[in-house]
């Protein structure tokens, strides 16, 4: 059935419900989860940075001084919303294979809250950006991750199983935290006020990922080398999500007061406007390294340590000067031929998947189901 034109948010809600059905989301398992828009306190009443610093935050797009700024603002909201729906599409199969009832509750909660975040972004689009916003909100429900139509690379990759899910949630959702924190400083008040409740919910998602990986390592059934393959799959895509080095849009978003630095409220230094994406990526990388140190502490003596891939490994040529070049996860340059072999051995492959299929059939691949935590 062709989609109806979306004019009001109620129209959009009908499309949203049809999307849930089409992607096979088990609505019957939602319980009393309520989809609604939520607004918290803004970081402050005035624009926090950029050329308009000190002026009252804008409550409507029409108060935003320039058309280019309004277009940029809508673009930020569109990209954020697209990731939210995409992640639900990526994870939708995993409901059937949850290792425990609590994991099932957790993934349903993660997916419900990601949908709510998408709902929140579409609410802003439909209620603030007129006909164009309504069309963009509708398009969020028409692109499909499995057709590789989502706007950002990470969100077109399949999430095949629970190791994949925990790695994705720990590292790709963590990029989401950074994006939301940067938007929480936005000069557009409805966007800034949307971020607090979203970030509060995101804490559960990030904890689900990191604790899931901890439980896997505690159980000791999945070889560390396989876990590393999934780090190699996701972490470089998460680096790419921060965007291009020396990005003009990032500079403009900052100058316009629409998207701040991750540490905007604590960083007194004058920002390097050519370095905004790299700055956020560096903070993210440091945080991920600390998490991986915690994970490595769980490994048995002699086990190879997990590694955060180098910033040069497997990067998108459109986004990084090192993109498309043959580097290993330690940042060592390889020959083209070595690189081909290296990727075949260090990314999830058919052999990995077959091995995992066997491991997932055993009840104790994740703690506490006979792993050390349950002992």
């Amino acid at each position, binding site marked *: 059935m062709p989609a109806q034109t979306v004019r009001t948010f109620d129209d959009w809600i009908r499309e949203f419900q049809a999307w849930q059905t089409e992607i096979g989301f088990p609505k019957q398992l939602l319980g009393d989860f309520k989809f609604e828009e939520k607004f918290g306190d803004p970081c402050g009443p005035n624009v926090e940075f950029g050329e308009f610093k000190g002026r009252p935050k804008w409550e409507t797009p029409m108060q935003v001084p320039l058309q280019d700024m309004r277009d940029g603002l809508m673009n930020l909201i569109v990209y954020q919303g697209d990731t939210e729906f995409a992640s639900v599409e990526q994870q939708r199969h995993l409901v059937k294979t949850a290792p425990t009832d609590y994991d099932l509750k957790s993934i349903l909660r993660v997916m419900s809250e990601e949908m709510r975040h998408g709902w929140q972004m579409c609410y802003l689009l439909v209620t603030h950006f007129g006909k164009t916003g309504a069309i963009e909100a509708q398009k969020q429900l028409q692109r499909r991750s499995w057709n590789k139509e989502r706007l950002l690379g990470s969100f077109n990759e399949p999430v095949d199983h629970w190791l994949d899910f925990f790695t994705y949630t720990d590292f790709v959702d963590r990029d989401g935290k950074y994006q939301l924190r940067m938007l929480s400083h936005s000069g557009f008040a409805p966007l800034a006020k949307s971020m*607090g409740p979203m970030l509060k919910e995101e804490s*559960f998602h990030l904890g689900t990922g990191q604790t899931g990986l901890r439980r896997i390592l505690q159980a000791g059934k999945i070889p560390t080398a396989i876990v590393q393959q999934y780090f190699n799959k996701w972490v470089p895509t998460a680096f790419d999500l921060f965007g291009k080095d020396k990005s003009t849009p990032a500079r403009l978003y900052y100058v316009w007061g629409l998207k701040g630095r991750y540490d905007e409220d604590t960083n007194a230094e004058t920002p390097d406007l050519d370095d905004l994406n790299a700055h956020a990526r560096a903070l993210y990388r440091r945080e991920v390294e600390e998490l991986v140190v915690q994970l490595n502490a769980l490994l048995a003596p002699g086990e190879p340590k997990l590694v955060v891939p180098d910033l040069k490994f497997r990067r998108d040529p459109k986004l990084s000067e090192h993109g498309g070049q043959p580097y290993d996860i330690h940042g060592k340059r390889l020959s083209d031929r070595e690189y081909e072999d290296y990727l075949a051995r260090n990314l999830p492959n058919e052999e990995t998947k077959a091995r995992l299929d066997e491991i997932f059939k055993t009840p104790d691949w994740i703690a506490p189901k006979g792993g050390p935590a349950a002992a």
Partner: protein
Amino acid sequence: MRGQAVASRRRPGATLSDQEFFEQVPRLFWACHAREETAYHLGIYLAHRPPDGSEVARALAFRAPGPAPAVASDLVRDFQAALADLHYPDAKPLLRLARHGLDARQAASLAHFELPSYPLYEPLAVKGLLLLGRVAPMPGRLDEPGLRGYRTFMQQLDELKEAVPFTCVPEAPYYLSRVVEAALTELAVEQSEAAK
């Protein structure tokens, strides 16, 4: 902004304001959780529907001294029946467990590990609330007044869950009812140790 101003004001008789508490929530939560993570993980990750006797025993043993209690099969059946009717924040279905000699603390523990929105109802967490100038009855018998006390405790936690800023929510796969309860418990422990 107004919300933050209210949260930063101390309530009458409080040792610290909600805002002062919120800033300590991640530290307090992890300190409490570190002591009991294994038992807590067994409680949540081995729970399934319908619950069996081992799950009921684990929930009753959580934070309780001594060995896990023996669990009669009719208690398990009554708990399964109560679960079918439990919808947060209604706690009345837990009254079915009263005939087994359980108190409100134990009933809350059973509810929490199956439906984590229901918080653990612990004397130390009630003391923690008191340090914020918030009053809830101590857990007592499992009867109508006892469940009203649990309901008051839940309402106090709901207010804190709603008001806690995202910057103070630890990255953890646990429901906010668990995070806030554990932080309150630890607050009371620290206060009591400081008073010695």
